[in-house]
């Protein structure tokens, strides 16, 4: 074993894993959609509401000070998590989608103009397609799409052909939610910078599996969601290089993001508050720190090594299912196993596995253009996290045999 984790002890940290589904012990393989939360995070959430719930910043009283301090500690924790140079480069958002919209709206509307080209890839989530399409419609920009091969890997030579002096922005997914592919983002960023384009990475999937160093990557923006890293739902962060964020106008108006308001003119607050209008999601931000502490206690390399073992085990195990085809066979991938089975609709697979207590996701996974690329309407996707086991994968295999028997 290449990891040093006590998986049973880890499972005990996640109360939800004791649930029964349809009378059977829950097998949770929908981790790419959201991960479950360790007790530590649940306690942090209730602890915040029980002991120091208050609105943050500008409060003069004890609770407000304590809540503000915990909130800002989370920002510093996330700075360290991404190795960002400055804490004010961490903007709290509602999640990955929100961060991408912030950049498309604020940076895009300010710095992009008609005829400028934006590059995305075939494997983007809708959240990294639609905001750019909206921008293109409004500003007259042109969206270009990097093709992929049959294994689900970006074709780098095709990407290079798309890069021209008209390319002003590249927005690609670090790790594909549908395929598990880890994209060569460092190379993608360097090539984009060579033509003067800025780069955003959609880190929704990558952040739970890979060690992220935004300075080493040299990305201009990085957007992620904490609920995919064992943290709470409804919050994420946008990392942006300080100079870029400073040059961008606010995205939303309201409280917190202002320096001074008169009816004649409003001046805006400094980073990061300029982009954090209104009362933020304080409890979830506070609890996010504990999720990252939990991940660090286990060690991301340990988590990755164990998840890779699960992926390898599952990939070999499903090969015995007649008619099953894995969608996404990139050389570099995380623990996502997407598949189709001849003659069986993915929805039926999902329903029948659920009735056996096994949670997978079925459908297009918000990547319809990617499904079109493979000439399919959807897949069944099993995605593994650190608390999953090979015994659970064995149950999946038994479950799939049962599905085939029932529908045969």
């Amino acid at each position, binding site marked *: 074993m290449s990891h040093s984790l006590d998986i049973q002890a880890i499972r005990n940290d996640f109360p939800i894993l004791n649930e029964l589904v*349809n009378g059977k012990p829950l097998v949770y393989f929908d981790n790419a959609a959201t991960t479950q939360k360790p007790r530590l995070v649940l306690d942090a959430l209730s602890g915040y509401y029980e002991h120091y719930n208050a609105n943050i910043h500008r409060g003069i009283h004890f609770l407000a000070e304590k809540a503000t301090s915990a909130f800002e500690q989370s920002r510093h924790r996330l700075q360290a998590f991404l190795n960002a140079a400055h804490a004010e480069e961490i903007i709290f958002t509602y999640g990955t989608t929100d961060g991408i919209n912030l950049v498309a709206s604020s940076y895009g509307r300010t710095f992009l103009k008609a005829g400028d080209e934006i590059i995305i890839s075939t494997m983007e989530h809708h959240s990294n397609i639609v905001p750019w399409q909206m921008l293109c419609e409004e500003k007259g920009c042109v969206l270009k799409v990097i093709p992929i091969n049959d294994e689900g890997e970006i074709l780098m030579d095709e990407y290079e052909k798309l890069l021209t002096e008209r390319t002003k922005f590249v927005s690609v997914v670090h790790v594909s939610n549908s395929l598990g592919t880890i994209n060569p983002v460092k190379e993608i960023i360097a090539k984009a910078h060579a033509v003067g384009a800025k780069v955003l990475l959609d880190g929704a999937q990558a952040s739970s599996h890979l060690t992220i160093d935004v300075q080493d990557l040299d990305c201009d923006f990085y957007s992620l969601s904490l609920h995919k890293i064992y943290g709470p739902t409804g919050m994420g962060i946008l990392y942006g290089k300080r100079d870029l964020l400073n040059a961008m106008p606010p995205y939303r108006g309201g409280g917190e993001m202002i320096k001074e308001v008169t009816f004649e003119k409003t001046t805006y607050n400094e980073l990061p508050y300029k982009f954090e209008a209104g009362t933020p999601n304080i409890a979830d931000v506070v609890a996010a720190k504990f999720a990252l502490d939990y991940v660090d206690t286990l060690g991301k390399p340990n988590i990755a090594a164990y998840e890779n073992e699960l992926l390898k085990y599952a990939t070999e195990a499903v090969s015995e299912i007649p008619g099953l085809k894995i969608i996404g066979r990139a050389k570099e991938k995380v623990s996502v196993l997407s598949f189709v089975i001849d*003659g*069986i*609709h*993915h*929805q*039926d697979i*999902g*329903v*029948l596995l659920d*009735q*056996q207590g096994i949670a997978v996701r*079925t*459908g297009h996974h918000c990547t319809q253009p990617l499904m079109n690329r493979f000439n399919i*309407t*959807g897949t069944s996707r099993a995605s593994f996290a650190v608390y999953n086991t090979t015994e659970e994968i064995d149950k999946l295999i038994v479950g799939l045999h*049962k599905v085939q028997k*029932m*529908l045969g």
Partner: protein
Amino acid sequence: MTINEIQDELISDFELFDEQLDKTQYIIDLGKKLPPIDEKYKTDEYLIHGCQSKVWLAAEFRDGRLYFLGDGEPTAQIAKGLISILIKILSGQKPEDIANADLYIMERVGMGALVTSRRSGGLAAMIQKMKGFGTVYSQLEV
């Protein structure tokens, strides 16, 4: 038979099975018995939107009653089973009864979750479409 009488009769069939998977197998088997519909109905016009799988539904209004024709794509066996159950219950009923039907059978056969999880199930979309026909034709009668 009324809508509820048909539902109750079907429920008693399902109660022969203890295990949820066996109930679902029965749904699948009912789908296999669904008579094929004319290819002319398998167009976007008759497609039920909101299903992960393709399900088509057409309605004919005769003598104050609505008659349904439906089918699903061949691989979508659970969806076919569900539409066949709905057709068994609602086809030949009065439009206002269809519009106001309480389809409690779905909960009883273990498909309640598919009614509420609108995105994944599509069952809610099937019910909505059939009730929609009921509403439209009940208003026409007046």
